[in-house]
């Protein structure tokens, strides 16, 4: 279903002279997607990376769900202005507004605005460097906020067509690499 819609959008995108605009068009045509992920997180204080697994779900225009199943269940949900973090084992459930967390918004938008194909929002928070074309592309985001750049230096995104495959975050606290594979 999703794939067919993305295919329909392809000929249009192929005609566009700007490959970034073409990728954005494909992404914005992808209204829903599901994927499973593996994430490797390096933390300076730990002698080995933390590996976690789970599923990702995107629904346009603004809902992104990251459900971790391993090693501990967790739900990270962004919807509209609201970010929810649930950790049932710890009895934790927290909702915060993005407006109340200015340092969090650029990190959320790096993923969400990309999935939405919303280059304007993306550029509002990050400097964007693009390479590749719609079949295989890579974007490197550098946060505009100097304060945030003190903690997160860059976010690299890789994708194939309307599918976001790799998210690599480089920060003070180490590197995090998330790899997604389309869910059946």
């Amino acid at each position, binding site marked *: 279903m999703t794939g067919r819609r993305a295919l329909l959008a392809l000929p249009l995108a192929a005609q566009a002279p700007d490959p970034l605009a073409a990728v954005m068009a494909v992404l914005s045509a992808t209204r829903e997607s599901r994927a499973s992920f593996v994430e490797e997180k390096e933390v300076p204080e730990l002698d080995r990376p933390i590996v976690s697994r789970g599923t990702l779900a995107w629904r346009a225009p603004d809902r992104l769900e990251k459900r971790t199943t391993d090693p501990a269940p967790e739900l990270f949900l962004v919807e509209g*202005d609201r970010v929810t973090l649930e950790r049932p084992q710890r009895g934790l459930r927290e909702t915060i507004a993005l407006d109340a967390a200015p340092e969090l918004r650029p990190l959320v938008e790096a993923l969400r605005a990309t999935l939405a194909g919303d280059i304007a929002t993306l550029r509002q928070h990050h400097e964007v460097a693009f390479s590749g074309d719609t079949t295989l592309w890579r974007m490197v985001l550098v946060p505009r906020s100097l304060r945030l750049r003190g903690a997160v230096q860059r976010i690299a995104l890789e994708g194939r067509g309307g599918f976001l495959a790799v998210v690599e975050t480089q920060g003070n606290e180490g590197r995090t690499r998330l790899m997604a594979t389309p869910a059946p």
Partner: protein
Amino acid sequence: MRRFARLFLALAVLAAAFPLLLRHVELRSDITDFLPAAGTEEAAFLLRELRSGAATRLLVAGIEGAAPGELAGISRGMAQRLSADPRFALVTNGSTLVNEEEAALLFAHRYALSPAATPAAFAEPALRASLEGVLDGLQSSAAPLVRRFALADPTGAFLAMLRGWAGEGRVATEHGVWMAAGPRALLLAQTRAAGLDTQAQEAAVAAVRDAFAQAAPPAGARLLLSGPGIFAAEAAATVRADVRLVSTLSFVLVGGFLFWRYRSPMMLAVVAVPLAAGTLAGLAVVAAVFGHVHGAALGFGMTMLGVVDDYPILLVTNRAAGEALRDTARRIWPTLRLAVAAAVAGLAPMLASGFPGLAQLGLFAASGLVAAALATRFLLPALLPPEGLAVRPLPERLAHALLRLPARRGVVLALLALVAVAMAATGGPRMERDLAALSPVPEPVRALDGELRAQVGAPDVRVVLALRADTAEAALQAAERAATALSGAATIDHAARFLPSAATQRARLAALPEDAVLAARLAAAREGLPFRATAFDPFLADVAAARALAPLTPDGLGAAPLLAARIAPLLRQEPDGWRALLLPTDIRDPAALRAAAAGVPGLLLVDIKAETEALLAANTGIALRWAALGAIAVLLLLGAGRGAAGGARIAAALGGALLLTFAALAALGEAITIFHLTAALLLAGVGMDYALFMSRSENTAGEDAARALGSVITCMVTTLLTFGLLALCRTPVLRATGLTVTIGVAAAFLLACALAPRRSTPI
């Protein structure tokens, strides 16, 4: 017109005196002026809290009429702006607004301040659990936050401390701010200025409204606001609106009536002279004695002086054909003098009531009455032409019916007896015991306040515990001991919960394990976990540093404004030392709380509601006692002036009127307040005028009796036209007065007619 030139000149002089006098008089609108002086330590504490306690500095704001996200945005915008405003000591909206400097200071002192810094938390098993928790946190999406605190504070002392401050989460948080059903975002702002500082409170209210406007609220968003500043403004606005409405309407109605009765607009000017003289005298005397005038005393006193309309009416109407007005004044003076003396005697109890507000009122009315009577006796005859004003005769049938009432005296007395029995059987009218009912603040405003406070989770402070000590440290230690003693019966909020005593801080630091011991325990706890050996070096360094830090004390909180604001309402310096308050927020067992409190030396338990009711009851008791004395004084005066039989007749008319009034109030379901009682005293004074003037005509011709009747009817109608309108007011003091006097005056008039001496020749 030239005949009245002197009258107008006198009025112009009086009118010009008002602004001059008002410029030097301070007007106040403080409800506690209507509370008595305190007799017990509990009462003194209560009165001080009512006047200047923390609750009087609190503004509660609700924002509604938009989507929750927008409301949260407005709330944040307002909080940011108001936090930067030096007029506010503390602004909270559910989001944590600790600035970085304060956070750093509190973080450094966490092992002294946090209740979670117990020796058990530093034992190996607890450390192991803490480290596993940190690892779990690092795995989560909240990892950046976890890293920020947990590596230096794996036991979570700092976060436990902040959680403790936030309270038990009574208010739901949505979009990062307090949000009640509705949706309604909630915000609390505590002013630095006292609640009684009306101007500062008004400025604070304006600042909150401005912050709302600056937060760019979408169309439809509303700001609800409550607090002392609002109360003062609303009370003033209500009283002002009431007074404007009543004075305009009664001016028109009384003016119209007098114009009809005296066929001349001049009568209004005549009536105005004693009224203006009385008001000026009342204002001047009260300001001279008290240094200020209470708004309610002025409003109430002014209307009370409406009664002095009677004096010029009695003067002009009682003039016999061909008599010079000067002679009429001399002829009725003994009766008028007796009426005024008795009225002043009736007002005397108010001076001794113990309520500064009521004392003002009594003084205002008494001095006004005397001044108005003197103006009627000596000033008016000199200002008016000797023939006075022509009086339209009463409708003959009405006069006949009223003058023949004494023939039905038996029926009237039987009726009074019946009402007295009914009153005794039903227990009489119920007394008002709620202080709030006396407040001039309109009911909807108070209802909103209650609603907002309930939503914000401000505890319904029914019981407050207080203790005194010579130093802040001693007060904090005493608060800690008391809180421990009471912890079985209730959850206690107190200053040491936020800032423990220096002794407790030192004890916590002394209980921390030695550096080497802690390092060894940490290494053991880390066994098998993926942490590097150096991962918790910041923790070890901070514990070592904490031991060297001097305890935080109340006077060292310059860099911690939030902490300072939290403890300010709970610990304060007073002239005779330091006072700590303990607020039970969740009383599980009131009796146990009381018993536990009694076991702590020096701890004062104040049951706010019971204490307030006791105050009011004590007050009412005092007022009734003085009223009884006033009544005796009135009886003695009447007996001296009219002989035993005449005095008894007038007393019967008066007593009957009071009886009928309270019976009617009970039938209307009114709860009797101190204001009804005061109004009853006033009514006694007015009713006495009627009885005195009606029975003055004992040995005189029918024509004289008809004149007396005409003058008394005119007095009654003007009084009804003013007080009848007061009964429609919203302000409790004005309404209670209006209702009581309206019913009473009608009853007093009919009884004065019925109990007047029988005439030998009916007309």
